[in-house]
């Protein structure tokens, strides 16, 4: 395991202002969305985070200007350390860089994230929908699209405070 202090020290040397925290046993770091490729390349080449576990996103509609959070999980297999990177982007302009130049496996993960959240991965070789139909013109995992049909009257959730 790389300790939080060691990694924080090494990250500070390369990029100013990155703050590592320990979130329930997982190292976590917020990064600027326009620097994600540089930071991930640095982690990949210099710090041994050679395995990309997952890319996904979360939608927080209340957070003005940082509605969409792109969550990337990296794994250093030699030191057995996981790292979670979070990059916030506004829903009006959800741009970030694609990690496909570092990790081939990022291809479909980013397509899936684009498909469901509309994150625009700049530099992706083939940013198309993957699980939904090509004709779809919205991003269904955003919170404004409700699961249930809001016009239904037979399912009144108000009683349960939902």
């Amino acid at each position, binding site marked *: 395991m790389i300790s939080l202090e060691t990694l924080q020290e090494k990250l500070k040397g390369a990029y100013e202002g990155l703050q590592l925290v320990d979130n329930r046993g997982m190292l976590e770091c917020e990064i600027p969305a326009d620097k994600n490729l540089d930071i991930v390349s640095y982690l990949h080449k210099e710090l041994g985070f050679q395995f990309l576990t997952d890319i996904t996103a979360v939608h927080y509609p209340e957070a003005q200007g940082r509605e969409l959070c792109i969550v990337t999980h990296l794994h250093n297999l030699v030191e057995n350390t996981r790292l979670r990177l979070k990059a916030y982007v506004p829903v009006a302009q959800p741009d970030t860089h694609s990690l496909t130049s570092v990790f081939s*496996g990022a291809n479909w993960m980013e397509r899936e994230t684009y498909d469901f959240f509309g994150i625009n991965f700049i530099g992706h070789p083939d940013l198309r929908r993957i699980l939904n139909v090509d004709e779809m013109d919205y991003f269904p995992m955003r919170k404004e699209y409700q699961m249930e049909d809001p016009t239904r009257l037979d399912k009144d959730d108000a009683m349960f405070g939902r």
Partner: protein
Amino acid sequence: MVEKQHQHIKLAENSIEKETTTINLGPTHPATHGIFQNIMEIDGERVLKTEMTVGYIHRAFEKIAERRPYSQVTTLTDRLNYCSAPINNMGWHMTVEKLVGLELPPRVDYLRVIVMELARIADHLICNSVIGVDTGALTPFTYVFQWRERIYDIFESICGSRLTTNMGRIGGFERNFTDETWKKIHDFMDTFPAVLKEFESLLTRNRIFMDRCIGAGPISAERALNWSFTGPNLRASGVDYDVRVAQPYSRYNEFDFKIPVGTTGDTYDRYLVRNIEMWESFSIIQQALEKLKGLDASVFHADAPEFYLPEKVDVYSKMEALIYHFKIVMGETDLPPGEVYHAVEGGNGELGYYLVSDGGRTPYRLHFRRPCFIYYQAFNEMVAGGLFSDAVVTLSSINVIAGELDA
């Protein structure tokens, strides 16, 4: 006799014909073993390029999960890798337990280990015997399927269903293993080694099988890591990454087992890795049965009344039991806010759950890291330049399960 020189096809200018052939392998082709499409560009017997299309059985599980109480998400996880559903169920329970901070008694963990390793054996049995089917050997498949049925019989007597199990609850199991379950498990343990040995003697050193599998769809360790491979497919190329060892859960650190690795990452290595893993799973179950001796046989769940349906007799006679019963049935149990990532070693690799809770009764966001979805994108790189028949055995040996592909 002078062999006729191979003639290149000369196409007329502006011809709509091409020199190569485009064929569709899938969505409903017997070689895909699931619903996904490969649009292949072939030149004679050589595959030039494959384009994979997925999403045919996308069921929006991540969206559905945002409206479901935590206990009801389990049924969604069944339908990811439906060949080893109990591993998915247990992985989900462990994720929620991690969020809540619940400690389980040792016996519950050992019971889970038994169930998960049985599921792994069932998963690998299907995959390996289907490689046999695709190379023309149907007998091993029909033979080992009986023992897969016996594993499903065990699941049935534990939880009542066979394929989509919905097994266990947050904090343990819904009921204790019965004497009949134990009898079935012991019967299975007594008979299975002979079956697996015979299965191996039918395929492993079979000349036709070896010729078809060796060198088909290889991938180097470096490329496999770069494509985020996990599970048997990664280990076949020589990387000894196994979640059970790297980040032990459910007391796997107390067990003694080996992680088999291959060298070339071809179909034959994947077959061998899965076969050895079945032996290791068998040994893990034996160890778990040994560890269970001397533990209180009445313990089958943690003391977590807010997740665990109380006994009916208590519901009718005790106040707290009635309240918990109502809250669980109506799905009104709030979880603490926070976010966790928990991974288990599924049949196909690292099955991860990224759960974000805002403190409500349902997940705020739940993402499944599905190993199939991630490694299937490398299929083009694995088969391009090889023979078409190699592509078919590669497809069955990487064990793409459509349910896990699409979520």
